[in-house]
């Protein structure tokens, strides 16, 4: 019991330590941080017309079930289901409650409360052994859930009906559909299949009535697909989509009815009920970034003028993928429709015909794959000052004479401007509340805290987000470009080639992706401040790049080149004008590629390049025997301030800081040891394995952080059934072999490796270390937990030199296997973040402060100060008190002086 006590005391003392390292006050909520919640790409949607608070029920590709407010588009409620195929939503239906079918294997049927998203019921539907998991269709009709299992081998469909609430099986039967292809859809109460010879077959799942249709000749033989359009109304409509157009087919009274007109493939089609048993068909399509909506009565083909409208916004719209509409008849017998559109760039648009766009949701942001925080350009005033010191820029203003007088004049004008802005800020201090509504200028602040988040999403849409407000400043959809894949994850190469510190040149970013239609690579170079293309903009390269590298030097325009290695081993630099410049530095540039599947790592040198042609020649080769599942190099921005560590005897243990060190993880499924995780530390210049370590029975999730002279990784230990954190620290020894320079090629003795493991009583989704400008501030590790919190752990807690016995070194806390999880260290407090994909950290202008952007299904931005904000006054600094004290002291000094004088005088008279 008293052992427990000690434990508790220890925990408390650690909590105190934690507390001192991180603090957020309750009144700081939302001051430095913001959260945005997303749902992902739309998959199913139902416009609710019945409830008094109008909602849209959606199910998405991200396995999210949610209700959106029709008025604002905000989330009324949201339930995030299991990750991956486990939670994939197969079917959604909403009337008296929202019903979803998710999973793959055993299917989970869940019912949700319409108003608040509480769970109503949950049951499982298992497949028989002979039933495939992938070809199962679902449909709902009058309280019954129908499961249609396509049995390919027997050319039959097995239909099982369930009581939707209890999961009780009501009936099961099979229908023969000979000659059907796998192109089948369940629409309403019908199962519809398109055969390869262009025949449409339908069967009613309720009573197995068959009907079919020989669709028009144009769809025959062509590569056509069956698309379900809208089954929410009593008239199910489906479309047969072929190359350019789609043919609409309605099912009425167990017969197919092909509509006379074909519509373009990129048009959104939805059907709603209209007056006196007729139906309205609403078509929406994107033309030159504008959405045009028109409609007609399905039965009579008569156009409905009322709903003809066009919508546009500041950024052009992309092609429409799905649409859903709800039309109502006004008292004056005019029709208006509410349309929910989902576009190919994952936006969700909600509009009202003959009115305007109500709201849009940028759901591509639920799938950010790469992020950079870009410095903003300086304000006009500061630009003027900078111009003053920039001699090259002197003859820009023709009106102002150059030379001594000109300089003087320029100085005067810039200082006048400064004075003016100062006055303005003083004046506006009182009325700043009014200004809040307006957009803040995108200019750099004095502490470098205001930046622009440039995010690349998996769908190929780019966003510029103001880091202080979270507003999307610009967006750009690169329709032709798609992402690369690396270890089954979408990736692009995204670099900042030039920051905004080089006036008059604008900042420039670089994205390397793939061309959708061909095998070639594509590059988009753009200004990150406004998203506008620079130079060639989006262009094809003519070869397929397999790896890229941002060079470390700039050309005369302060632009860093990007080296590209193509699939044939050729080497290119982008822009090509830098070829000669690169060849000058060729001796010091090394390059490596890693093949995840084969485990082969190859290193190249540029040393054999000439002025005209860059050549990558192979110099080293490592063959790992298992699949590479992770590769982590250090942040190129990283700076290490302290070169060593002070030991108890006041000697120095020098850190082994190798900028070329890369941590490579491999995972093997070993029959004896099961899931073996190996970590190799490889110097990618010399190609030597500096250190390697193995963990047996270690499984996913595995995350790794690599910084300074240490590596921290996490894995799930199958043996102990807990999440463990391993920490490695590399030291050169008590002396430095070369105090001035670090060369990987020069041979060295293996570094001393300290190691330790800890237990984290939580699951981990993502991990990242903090980074600051000069590397003086101590490092913390941000850990995205599966609870939705982001935990900040001081690196001190993961120090492998934490002693089990007495403390001998300064700043080392005794070893404790289990790391504490204090609530104070959750930097996002109660702002739960689902499915954290990655954490991006960037230095600010303040050494103490690190900017943190967390992305996944939700976005969260905040800033952390691992060693507290030692370089700025605390924001709760009491200016009033200090002024009062100063004034008081001066008054007191003056008064006592007078008193003393008087006393002296009195004394003299005595």
């Amino acid at each position, binding site marked *: 019991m008293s052992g427990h006590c000690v434990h508790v005391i220890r925990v408390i003392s650690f909590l105190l330590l934690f507390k001192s390292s991180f603090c957020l006050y309750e009144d700081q909520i939302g001051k430095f941080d913001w959260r945005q919640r997303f749902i992902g790409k739309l998959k199913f949607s139902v416009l609710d017309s019945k409830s008094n608070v109008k909602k849209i029920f959606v199910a998405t590709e991200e396995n999210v079930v949610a209700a959106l407010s029709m008025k604002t588009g905000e989330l009324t409620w949201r339930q995030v289901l299991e990750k991956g195929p486990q939670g994939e939503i197969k079917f959604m239906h909403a009337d008296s409650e929202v019903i979803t079918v998710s999973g793959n294997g055993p299917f989970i049927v869940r019912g949700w409360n319409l108003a608040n998203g509480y769970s109503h019921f949950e049951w499982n539907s298992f497949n028989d052994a002979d039933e495939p998991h992938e070809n199962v269709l679902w449909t709902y009709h009058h309280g019954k859930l129908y499961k249609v299992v396509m049995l390919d081998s027997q050319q039959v469909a097995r239909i099982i009906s369930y009581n939707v609430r209890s999961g009780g099986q009501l009936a099961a039967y099979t229908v023969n559909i000979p000659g059907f292809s796998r192109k089948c859809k369940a629409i309403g109460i019908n199962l519809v299949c398109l055969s390869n010879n262009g025949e449409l077959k339908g069967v009613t799942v309720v009573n197995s009535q068959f009907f079919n249709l020989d669709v028009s000749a144009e769809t025959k033989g062509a590569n056509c697909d069956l698309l379900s359009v809208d089954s929410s109304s009593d008239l199910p409509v489906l479309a047969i989509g072929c190359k350019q157009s789609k043919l609409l087919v309605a099912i009425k009274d167990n017969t197919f009815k092909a509509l006379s007109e074909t519509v373009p493939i990129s048009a959104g089609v939805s059907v709603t009920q209209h007056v006196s048993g007729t139906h309205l068909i609403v078509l929406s399509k994107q033309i030159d970034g504008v959405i045009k909506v028109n409609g007609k009565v399905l039965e009579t083909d008569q156009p409905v003028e009322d709903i003809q409208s066009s919508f546009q916004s500041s950024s052009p719209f992309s092609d429409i993928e799905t649409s859903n509409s709800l039309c109502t008849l006004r008292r004056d017998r005019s029709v208006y429709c509410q349309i929910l559109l989902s576009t190919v760039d994952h936006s969700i648009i909600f509009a009202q015909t003959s009115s305007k766009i109500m709201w849009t949701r940028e759901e591509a942001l639920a799938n950010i794959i790469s992020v950079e925080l870009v410095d903003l350009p300086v304000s006009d005033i500061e630009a003027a000052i900078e111009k003053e010191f920039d001699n090259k820029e002197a003859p820009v203003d023709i009106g102002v004479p150059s030379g001594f007088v000109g300089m003087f004049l320029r100085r005067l004008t810039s200082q006048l401007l400064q004075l003016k802005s100062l006055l303005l800020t003083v004046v506006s201090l009182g009325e700043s509340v009014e200004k809040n509504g307006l957009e803040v200028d995108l200019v750099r602040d004095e502490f470098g805290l205001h930046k622009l988040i440039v995010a690349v999403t998996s769908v190929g849409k780019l966003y510029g987000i103001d880091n202080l407000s979270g507003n999307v400043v610009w967006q750009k959809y690169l329709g032709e470009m798609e992402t*690369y*894949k*690396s*270890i089954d994850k979408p*990736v692009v*190469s995204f670099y900042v080639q030039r920051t905004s510190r080089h006036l008059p040149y604008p900042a420039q970013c670089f994205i*390397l992706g793939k061309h959708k239609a061909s095998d070639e690579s594509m590059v988009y170079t753009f200004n990150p401040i406004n998203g506008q293309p620079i130079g060639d903009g989006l262009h094809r390269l003519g070869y397929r*790049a*397999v*790896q*890229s*590298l*941002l*060079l*470390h030097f700039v050309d005369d325009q302060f632009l860093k080149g990007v*080296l590209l*290695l193509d699939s044939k081993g050729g080497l290119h630099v982008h822009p090509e004008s830098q070829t000669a410049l690169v060849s000058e*530095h060729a001796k*010091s*540039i*090394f*390059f*490596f*590629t*890693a*093949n*995840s599947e084969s485990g082969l790592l190859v290193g190249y040198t540029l040393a054999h390049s000439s002025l005209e042609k860059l050549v990558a020649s192979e110099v080293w080769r490592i063959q790992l025997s298992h699949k*590479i599942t992770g*590769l982590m*190099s250090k942040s190129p921005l990283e*700076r*290490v*301030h*302290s*070169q*060593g560590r*002070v*030991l108890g005897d*006041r*000697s*120095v243990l020098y850190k082994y*800081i190798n*900028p*070329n060190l890369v941590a490579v993880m491999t995972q093997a499924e070993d029959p004896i040891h099961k899931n073996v995780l190996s970590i190799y530390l490889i110097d*990618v*210049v010399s190609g030597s394995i500096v250190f390697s370590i193995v963990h047996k029975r270690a499984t996913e999730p595995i995350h790794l952080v690599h910084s300074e002279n240490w590596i921290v990784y996490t894995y799930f230990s199958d043996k102990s059934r807990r999440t463990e954190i391993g920490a490695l620290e590399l030291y050169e020894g008590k002396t*430095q072999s*070369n*105090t*001035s*320079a*670090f*060369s*990987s*090629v*020069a041979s060295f003795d293996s570094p001393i490796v300290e190691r330790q493991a800890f237990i984290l009583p939580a699951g981990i989704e993502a991990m990242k270390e903090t980074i600051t400008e000069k590397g003086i501030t101590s490092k913390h590790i941000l850990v995205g937990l599966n609870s939705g919190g982001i935990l900040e752990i001081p690196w001190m807690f993961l120090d492998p030199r934490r002693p089990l016995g007495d403390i001998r070194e300064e700043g080392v806390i005794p070893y404790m296997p289990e790391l504490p999880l204090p609530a104070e260290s959750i930097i996002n407090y109660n702002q739960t973040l689902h499915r954290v994909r990655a954490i991006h950290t960037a230095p600010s202008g303040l050494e103490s402060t690190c900017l943190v952007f967390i992305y996944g299904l939700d976005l969260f931005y905040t800033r952390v100060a691992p060693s507290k904000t030692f370089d700025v006054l605390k924001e709760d600094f009491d200016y009033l008190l200090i002024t009062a004290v100063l004034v008081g002291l001066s008054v007191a000094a003056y008064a006592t002086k007078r008193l003393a004088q008087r006393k002296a005088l009195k004394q003299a008279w005595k």
Partner: protein
Amino acid sequence: MASSGSRSNNRRYKWALDFNYKSKQERSVDVPSPPGYNPALGQVYTETSKESDPNHLIIKKSWDLALGPLKQVSSFKMIEGSHSASQKFVYFLGNILSVGLALFKCQSMGLLPSHTSDWLAFVEPQIRMEYSGGGLLLT
């Protein structure tokens, strides 16, 4: 010594004159002296008279205090006589001892930057000789 003292006295005299408002003496400098009058004697007199002036005393005392450490240095030269060598040696030894004691105390308190760790903050980061990049193959 004496000459420098009189010079300083002279200066002091002029300086003191301004503040003590001895206007008669001031004028007497401008006006040619009567025969047989020695201005130097008058100076000596005024000086002695001023010795009693508390203000002057304070200033002098302060100067003594300020010059104290400097005088100590020169006092080394003033050691004279038959035992001067040993005296000088002892003086030297005493100083060494006190400095040594101070150093020892500082060392024992760990105030002296005598370990490599004390200079760690000045160790420059190593210059990077090679640059590398790349990663997993993009497919």
